């Protein structure tokens, strides 16, 4: 089976973001999605620290450390972008104005519950940031993650064992081997990589998976 690279995963997510969408890309892996949004498509990237219309990273040496994204990386602003304060920024999420947010995850349940902020380990210092607001605020929450942990456990689960970020908030999960829809109807497979079978995927995840007759090959 051909696992997708992180760049392939980012390109795959980008394919599902339509022109005109207002999108927040979470810290880490989701940030890569920006690299695969076609420049001819007007897509509006929001960063919760107060900008809309985020552009690519500046050239080295051109950084302005008062123009950063939520990951505290230097960014640029497109013509037509703007700045605003934190209350307005989170009103954009909570008020349902963002179309899509893309987040990383420790676990996603087949019902769409998300766990991505806290391992729950004793001694771990928790940090939540905007994850809970994004998860429940955007009209659609996409998750990008490897399907399995380094120990081979499925991160798509029947019920999350890590502390939750939000309940029933995830609609689609992009992994390195398959794309799933999740939610009240349970999980269904949308696409699988070449060489992977639904039986193998069921075995890997250990969760019930609905299966369209002809899932698309990624």
């Amino acid at each position: 089976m051909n696992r997708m690279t992180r760049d392939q995963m980012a390109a795959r997510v980008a394919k599902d973001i339509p022109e005109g969408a207002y999108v927040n890309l979470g810290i880490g892996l989701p940030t890569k999605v920006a690299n695969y949004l076609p420049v001819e498509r007007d897509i509006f990237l929001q960063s919760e620290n107060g900008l809309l219309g985020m552009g690519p990273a500046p050239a080295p040496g051109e950084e302005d450390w008062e123009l950063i994204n939520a990951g505290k990386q230097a960014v640029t602003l497109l013509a037509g972008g703007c700045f605003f304060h934190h209350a307005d920024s989170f009103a954009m999420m909570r008020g349902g104005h963002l179309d899509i947010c893309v987040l990383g995850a420790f676990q996603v349940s087949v019902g769409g519950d998300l766990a991505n902020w806290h391992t729950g380990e004793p001694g771990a210092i928790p940090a939540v940031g905007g994850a809970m607001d994004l998860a429940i605020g955007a009209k659609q929450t996409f998750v990008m993650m490897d399907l399995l942990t380094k120990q081979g456990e499925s991160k798509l689960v029947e019920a999350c064992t890590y502390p939750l970020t939000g309940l029933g908030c995830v609609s689609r999960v992009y992994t390195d081997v398959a794309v799933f829809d999740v939610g009240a109807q349970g999980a269904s497979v949308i696409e699988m990589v070449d060489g992977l079978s639904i039986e193998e995927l069921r075995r890997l995840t250990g969760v019930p998976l609905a299966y369209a007759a002809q899932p698309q090959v990624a």
Partner: protein
Amino acid sequence: MIDKIVESAAAAVADIQDGASVMIGGFGTAGMPDQLIDALIDRGVGDLTIINNNAGNGETGVAALIKAGRVKKIICSFPRQSDSHHFDAAYRAGQIELELVPQGNLAARIQAAGAGLGAIFTPTGFGTLLAEGKETRTIDGVDYVLEYPIKADFALIKAQSGDRWGNLIYRKTARNFGPIMAMAATTTIAQVSHVVDLGAIDPEIVVTPGIFVQRVVQIASTTNHALAA
């Protein structure tokens, strides 16, 4: 390419249906989107719920909408004015329902809708007729009334300049309810005096980010500044 500019006021309001809830910006005549309202009247739809600070002044704007018999209910803070005769007549005839809301609660409830809050405890109105029957609570020794968000299907607002992504700036006290109504409506339609190029509005001074605006229509503003209130 995303271009939220529409060619006419008529096109901008063409999907407002009977029974819609419509926020209308403006405080008195300042910031009143008269041409959008005229287009709405021309559409001929009725049973509208209107959210505005007032209930119309003189013969234009919300007053004209009420005069035309299109308003089932109005949510506002200050209906009775020296020139609110169309509302007064409709109200006394039992043809229009009034939900009277203190002005600050009106603003806070609209803002709460835009921000996705479920309800707010506000001190305004506690112990008055306008809080009768509402849930109250004492928090840290202060008495509050529980008020719910006010959202709408559409917002019709007036701004000074807008671009094709929907970014808006306003002019003086014509700003009033525009920015918060834009956040609280499913579809926000702004009439602007000037459509400007993308990037022409300094990103530091955008008042309403384009995410809150779905349509922009340019209406020459020559008459509005000169109009008496």
